[in-house]
């Protein structure tokens, strides 16, 4: 992988300082990889190849190594997603409580149509995810960084309205 054209680095100013602080917590530079990738995603909304090169340089790793790690973890976006990223749990405990109906309501009211697709207005991307660790609060939904418990079909429309 190579950086071509204009590239605006992620780790400058305040973010560079935050990364430096994180590096003091671990005996190796490599260990700061997951936190560094989180910072990229916060700043860019996803993790482009160019940013992987920058992370690799900052942590003395190869870009291929960084990509290998990015692809392992499902929460890192390797492609741009809608302005709001919605994750709905449909694993068995939530499934027993109607999680698939909740997913259908999200698809319908968001205009996404199908899972993984971004709505035509660029506002939403919706995915089904495996157990979110809140099975007693079915159905839990993660919208961006907001963890929302107990979402039912009748709450979906109002919930979406809160994310312009």
């Amino acid at each position, binding site marked *: 992988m190579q950086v071509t054209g204009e590239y605006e680095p992620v780790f400058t100013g305040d973010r560079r300082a935050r990364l430096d602080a994180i590096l003091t*917590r*671990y*005996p*190796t530079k*490599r*260990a*700061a*990889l*997951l*936190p560094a*990738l*989180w910072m990229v995603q916060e700043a860019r909304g996803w993790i482009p190849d160019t940013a992987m090169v920058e992370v690799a340089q900052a*942590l003395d*790793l190869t870009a291929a190594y960084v990509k*290998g*790690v990015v692809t*392992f*973890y*499902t*929460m*890192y976006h390797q492609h741009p997603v809608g302005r709001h990223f919605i*994750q709905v749990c*449909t*694993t*068995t*405990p939530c*499934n*027993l*409580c109607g999680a698939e109906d909740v997913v259908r309501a999200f698809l319908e009211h968001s205009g996404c149509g199908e899972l993984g697709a971004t709505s035509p207005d660029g506002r939403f991307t919706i995915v089904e*995810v*495996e*157990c*979110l*660790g*809140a*099975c*007693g*609060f*079915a159905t839990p939904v*993660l919208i961006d*960084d*907001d*963890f929302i418990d107990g979402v039912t079909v009748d709450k979906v429309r109002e919930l979406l309205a809160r994310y312009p």
Partner: protein
Amino acid sequence: MGYPHKPHQKETVLLSQYFGDPEARTYGGWVKRGGYEALKKALGMSPAEVVEVVKVSGLRGRGGAGFPAGVKWSFMPKEKSKPHYLCCNADESEPGTFKDREIMRWTPHALIEGCAIAMHAIQAEVGYIYIRGEFTEAIRIMQAALDEAYKVGTLGANAMGSGRRLDIWIHRGAGAYICGEETALMNSIEGRRGNPRIRPPFPAQAGVFGMPTTVNNVETLTSVPHIINRGAEWYQKLSLSNPKSSGTKLFSVCGHVARPGNYEVTMGFPLKDLIYDLAGLRDGRTLKACQPGGSSVPILDRAETEACLLDYEGCVGQGTMLGSGGLIVFDDSADMVYQIMRLTRFYAHESCAQCTQCREGTGWTVRILERILSGKGTMGDLDLLLDIGEQMTGKTICVLSDSCAVPVVSGIKKFRGEFEAYITGARKPVLAVA
């Protein structure tokens, strides 16, 4: 207590006493409730003394395997020649389990205190709390509590004025159930793909960064301050049946119940009381089955459920396991075939794909179950599933592979009629042709 419900008189509320009480989240509020007394006491004891107290208490790991915590701590080298580490496992991703999240959301300082005591016992200066990436709220609350603890000097270079350095950092995961497996968790902290490691070496010899390491679950560590405060004998006696299982345990009750939530009961509590009295079935429904310890433990039918006592031995006695205490309840309306298929999709999605049996076996299992659910299955498919299940058991680097087979094998054994109904056409297909 069964937050968000009121405590039930049959509960023994130790860890969950302050669930739902936002004041308990703050340093001041926690100290007012007796917080950090145990850490002060432990820092006045030698590490070996702390280990001994936890050993005698009988506290066993609450992350799933039930290994005695004090014994695990005693495996750490006594003579310290390298840095030691504590990893707190807050990856909580086993379907059915949501107790660690509540501990972190409501009583973050209880976990910090437990970590700090464990770090003293195993002579670690640095501890990492590995929290799954999706737990955004828990991460925020834990970070705020850590900031407070540093500010007042409970943590840092001279923790509570003891001269001991105690540093605790949060390491955020990024979406991978397998990182709850302790060696995968250590790889993930090191900035690697979360593949489980082959043992030996065991973590106490060569763990995170190749250094002696102890990995403990959130609930295990949060139980420790109570033991330090009230004594090992008191904890040892908290047991309703088998003395090898002591203390209280949080059960995350979910699925087909009227009042889902975390219920805290003394070890040995009857499973049927937890389902019928505490969480309650929904109106007009009867119990069909349950998994008492998360999605990876064998399914119990109704008769077995009604006979089961909730401790490590009681669960084994009924052919299942206590696991993480994630109790998934299925009532008479549940389609066992579909729900078991849904569980196997979970394992297929979460396999790290290092071992052939797991990578291929999880996928095959899903596809065969989907075929049955689409009305295209054959009776031979059931034998095939059992055969694959056997090939997936006891042959891989970690037990995720076994875990996928468990609900399938126990499900076919106990609910064979439901599988056959899809195969004979007695039941209408619920999936399009696979």
